[in-house]
């Protein structure tokens, strides 16, 4: 049988600050829209307006902003390349 082949070597972790007002349900709509975008693997939007988006290589923060309504005044705070294994190790049940 095939060897384990991870689908990504690295992924991008993009932190975005949203400063416009967003309701709880609107927040979830945005999360859904981001998650159904081809290259987005995770999208977490906190109550304080900070969003962390994990995207596949090839999706840069600038492109991501196209999916976020302008009224939310999205500002990219940090964009870093992380190994996919790091994402996995955070997601597989860790004794935290």
């Amino acid at each position, binding site marked *: *049988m095939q060897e384990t082949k991870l689908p990504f070597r690295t992924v991008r972790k993009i932190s975005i600050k949203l400063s416009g007002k967003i309701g709880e*349900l609107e927040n979830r709509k945005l999360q*859904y829209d981001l998650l159904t975008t081809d290259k987005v693997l995770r999208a*977490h939007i906190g109550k304080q307006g900070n969003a962390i988006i994990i995207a596949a290589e090839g999706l840069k923060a600038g492109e991501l902003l196209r999916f976020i309504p302008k009224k939310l005044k999205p500002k990219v705070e940090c964009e870093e390349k992380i190994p996919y294994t790091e994402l996995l190790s955070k997601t597989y049940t860790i004794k*935290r």
Partner: protein
Amino acid sequence: MSREFGKYTGSLPHETLSICPECKRVLKARVFAEKNNVFIERKCPKHGNFKEVYWENAEYYNKMRKFGSEEAKIQNPNTGFVGENGESCPFDCGLCSNHKSHTGLANIAITNRCDLSCWYCFFYAKEGEPIYEPSLELIDKMLANLRDQKPVSTNAIQLTGGEPTLRNDLEEIVKLCVKRGFEHVQLNTTGISLGFKKGLAERMKKAGVGTAYVSFDGTTKKTNPKNHWEIPYALKECEKAGIGVVLVPTLIKGINDSDIGNIINFALNNLQVVRGVNFQPVSFVGRISKKERNARRITIPKAIELIEEQTNAEIKMEDFYVVPTIHSFTRFVEALTGHKQYDLSVHFACGAATYLFLDGKKVIPISRFVDIEGFLEFLDGQSAELEKGKSKILTGAKLLLNINRFIDRSKQPSFLNFGKLLFDALVKHDYNALGKIHEKSLFIGMMHFMDPYNYDVERVQRCDIHYAMPDGRIIPFCSFNVLPEVYRDKVQKQYSISWKEWKKTRPGIDPSFKYKRNIKELEASEIYKKAYTGLTEHFKK
């Protein structure tokens, strides 16, 4: 949200969250009664109003909601990069810190290949589509992930697909499950390979499979075109191998809802191998018109009502209890042992069940000789005293003295000492006796998975049937399958390989293989004839 005394009660009317079936936007919704039906209704700003049947009997809903369970949260949730309770149901599943049930039964999809092409199924790769088949190493990681769940480690696993028996390394996969400590290993299958692949059932049993969860939509060719001809062979092979079978009919109004009584009768005629029937009222995928939904939708109370009708009231509506009823037993054992126990803290609207015993030709539901509600009340009282620090020995003695108050010995099956069996299970944690009576008992269950039209976020928050995904997340069934674009399809696509690549690594195996039946030959066999003719009629007056 309605919660009383720490329990979820779902009193009517109440508010919850749902989704728009069109754009999947999360919406505020209302669950309410109207003309003895329970509905869920919400309004999408873009797609308008959606009102859908939730349960078809408001009176029964009100009876059953009393058994709504406490929460059984996990201690090590594994989503949330935001770190400020950033759970946004149902898009942060993983499980998150807001999820209210540990994994009761875990699923791992081990392939998306299937040797059937059922028109309504969306779980298999059509010719040329990428093939999802996680490696042994990846499967082992998923298993370890489930076992790591705290405070209750997952102990029941179902290998599913596609058709899991198409994998040549299935035996190794089952052995991995056993090695990781899963006590219950189940195959979700059409049963066709088990029936016809020589020695497969025995090899599976030897590797560690205890149960085959086999699709069985009816007792006739018309109600069960999927595997009507093959079921007798599957049952025979499983019996020979010692694998218990749970028959799984998907119930669709107007298609097979008139065959429910016959299905139970068929199961009772095969108690040497059939352990249970788990009915699954249909859940709709894709866009279905309201007219079509109304014509085909069936919910748990209606299905139970049909059981009463079609069994000439040998099995009655009041014989059924919702799944979280079991919590009183869990609570007692937890109080007695001081350790968190396996709990079924699902939403009461998700499932119901009863147990039947066969005494000669007579079918006796458990509630005919056990005062279930009285016993639960007594047990809750004992649990409360134990929690306050009462002596465990005294409580055990009190249970022993009182247990038979709740059992009508004159009505219990002649082969059964139910009081002893219950005491042994609760106090001594000895379940051997339960195993020994399986040939004379039958589990009848109902499990209603949701679809986008009747989606209730409160139900998904309590779901305990989960999928382990290769990316490390553990996803509730009704997130995984109702939002495939976020979970199932999205992640499986990432971990799939192309048809061409798959063929290259497995020379000689045709991924497009489809099973072809020879109806004439199958029908001519004694095995087939014996399975469907001359059955004992347990419910005919």
